[in-house]
């Protein structure tokens, strides 16, 4: 293992991570809801039949998603560049999207719900989920980058 010092950005990672944690905390404080993005998106397209407050619940979800979409655009006003360099193309991209959506729905959460929120609540279920997806993601990147798969 070698550390990639050129791309290592501990300070911005910590600051950005802190903002993500603060957002999760604020949503729990204001709405009493877990900031799990896959859960929010899944509830928008496939509402929970048993939700007692179904009439209210999608409005806050839509407002949150709109904010998350528009937020990064404001960084442009401060001339802060956001690097976006894709790693997948062709048929791999839609396949990856399908796996991310399907897996997050089946596993009841993703990097935000299990990662930022579940770990902060010390949930054993979320810890297992995070360790599982970290493991398969590391194996996948190894196979693609170092074993010539795909």
């Amino acid at each position, binding site marked *: 293992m070698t*550390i990639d010092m050129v*791309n290592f950005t*501990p300070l*911005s*990672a910590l600051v*950005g*991570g*802190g*903002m*993500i*944690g*603060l*957002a999760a*905390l604020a*949503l729990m*404080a204001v709405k*009493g809801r877990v900031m799990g*993005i896959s859960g929010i*998106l899944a509830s928008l*397209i496939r509402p929970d039949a048993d939700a007692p407050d179904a009439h209210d619940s999608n409005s*806050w979800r839509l*407002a*949150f998603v*709109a*904010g*998350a*979409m528009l*937020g*990064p655009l404001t*960084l442009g006003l401060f001339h802060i560049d*956001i690097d*976006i360099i894709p*790693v*997948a193309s062709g048929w791999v*991209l839609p*396949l*990856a*999207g*399908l796996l*991310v*959506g*399907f*897996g*997050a*729905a*089946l*596993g*009841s959460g*993703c990097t935000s719900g299990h990662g*930022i*929120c579940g*770990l902060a609540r010390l949930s054993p*279920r979320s810890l297992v989920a995070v360790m599982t*997806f*970290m*493991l398969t*993601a590391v194996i996948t*990147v190894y196979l*693609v*980058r170092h074993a010539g798969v795909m």
Partner: protein
Amino acid sequence: MPLLFSFLIGGLFGIGLAIAGMLNPSKIAGFLDIFGAWDPSLAFVMGGGVIVNLIGHHLLMKRATPLFGGTFRLPTVQDIDRQLLGGSALFGIGWGLGGLCPGPVISSLLLRPADVVIFAVMMMAGLWLGKAIR
């Protein structure tokens, strides 16, 4: 009023993702590539997010209700079952392949639509399917 807060909280989340480097699939892949040139940055994103939320959540739970009333809706399921394991395993494969997870997908959709729109559409289809069979 809480609706405006939800919008602003979403904005904070999106800006946090952008500053953290989470919108960049190459950076995600660099973190997951522990057998190559490893970029540990994402561990700091997770660490920063979890620590802030862990301390704050602990203090917040001293309250009986959220700030504007209602109830705290915390997950009650405790089971570590095949769906949790299988779903998380598939999620990780997709994350490794594309370098994108759901938050960064929505937060980069307007920045770089051409790079993420196909992923986003298939992700939504996957979410629908996964929830349908869960």
